[in-house]
């Protein structure tokens, strides 16, 4: 599967965020998108996910792909979790293809036993972020799309999360936005301005 982002242009209220942006996202490759706030990192991910339409240009799925849409595991800029549900429920609810036992094992790789059974509203910012990362990685997908996934994580948790994401990426693609590229040297860094 290849996602072709071609000649993309996107503006908000007359302010151009992306202008003639091009990128080919291929399987097994990692793309680390970095740049100052407001340079269009989140917009680019939203365009790839189909949540927004470009003013000009196209986002296309090339090749013989089994779905008409991008089958992605996604971490949003915000956690977007169901506050009253626990971590296990937050992960299992998004797909019929994941089961409680498997999800519990996945969550335990990044969180303590105690944390995964509490309503997520009682968790710290870092713990919630890790739940969002597991949710993206635990479901079967062909691409991981992550918008600032390490926000609120200390260095140790960040390293663990990077290791976890790398392991879960498998043969799929990874597109990740960040301000801090430490530990992400395995990917192709794309600097946006």
């Amino acid at each position, binding site marked *: 599967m290849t996602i072709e982002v071609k000649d993309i242009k996107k503006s908000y209220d007359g302010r151009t965020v992306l202008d003639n942006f091009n990128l080919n996202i291929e399987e097994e490759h990692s793309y680390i998108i970095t740049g100052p706030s407001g340079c269009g990192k989140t917009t680019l991910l939203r365009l790839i996910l189909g*949540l927004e339409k470009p003013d000009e240009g196209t986002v296309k799925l090339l090749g013989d792909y089994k779905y008409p849409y991008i089958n992605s595991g996604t971490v*949003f800029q915000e956690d977007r979790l169901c506050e*009253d549900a626990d971590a296990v429920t937050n992960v299992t*609810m998004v*797909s019929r293809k994941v089961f409680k036992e498997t999800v519990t094992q996945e969550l335990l790789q990044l969180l303590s036993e105690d944390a995964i059974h509490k309503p997520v509203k009682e968790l710290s910012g870092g713990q919630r972020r890790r739940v969002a990362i597991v949710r993206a990685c635990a479901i079967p997908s062909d691409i991981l799309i992550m918008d600032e996934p390490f926000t609120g994580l200390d260095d140790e948790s960040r390293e663990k999360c990077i290791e976890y994401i790398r392991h879960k990426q498998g043969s799929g693609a990874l597109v990740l936005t960040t301000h801090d590229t430490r530990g992400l040297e395995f990917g192709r860094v794309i600097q946006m301005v």
Partner: protein
Amino acid sequence: MSFITGYDWEKNLVKKVLRKVIPVIAWLLIWQLVAFMIHNKILLAGPLETLNALISLSQTSDFWESIAVSSTRILLGFFIGSVLGIAAAYLAYTNEVARDFLKPFVVTLKSVPVASFVILLLIWFGNRNISVIICAMVVFPILYLSTLEGFLCTDVKMLEMAQVFRMPRLRTVRYIFLPQLKPFFQSAFKLAIGMSFKSGIAAEVIGQPLHTMGNGLYLAKVYLETGELFAWTIVIVLISFICEKILALAIGRAK
């Protein structure tokens, strides 16, 4: 650090109960006093006469039959109105054309007096199921407007999350829509159940279907039995109150 002992807890409970009971007793005394001063059972029956009337009514089978028939019809109307109101709200949420189409209908239902509908429905359908139709018509706009507002307030970011993950539809409803709709349902159902009994009984008073609470009220008026009138009123208020509490409990427990 402070501790609440068993004794304090009991004291608080007694205080809470007294704060609710004393005003009721006070109002009953005022009622009795005014009735005593007026000294005319037709103009104003006192609480004792009302109690007597209630006791004698409760010894007739017609009383219980009327309660059963009216409550069943009113609750059936409430159920039909609720289901239709929620379904229409979902349709209006997903389709703006449907929302625009339904708007004049809902505004009309909301603003036309119940009595006008009752008379019209009496001409069209007769008096047998008048309270069912009237209740459904009164409940429909309440549930429709509240549910639609709840849908429109749903967190767009959570809906995007559901869309991106291709979250199953029923789970989206359970985990994203229902928690958002719950407070809207709570206030709408509370208002709707009270309005159902008020409008349903009003319809029965006008339409006079036999063996109903509305008919009981009407007969009490015709025979100038103010005690019976008050007794029926108390029964209606009590049933409405019980239904409201059961409903609140059911919604409160629903996750």
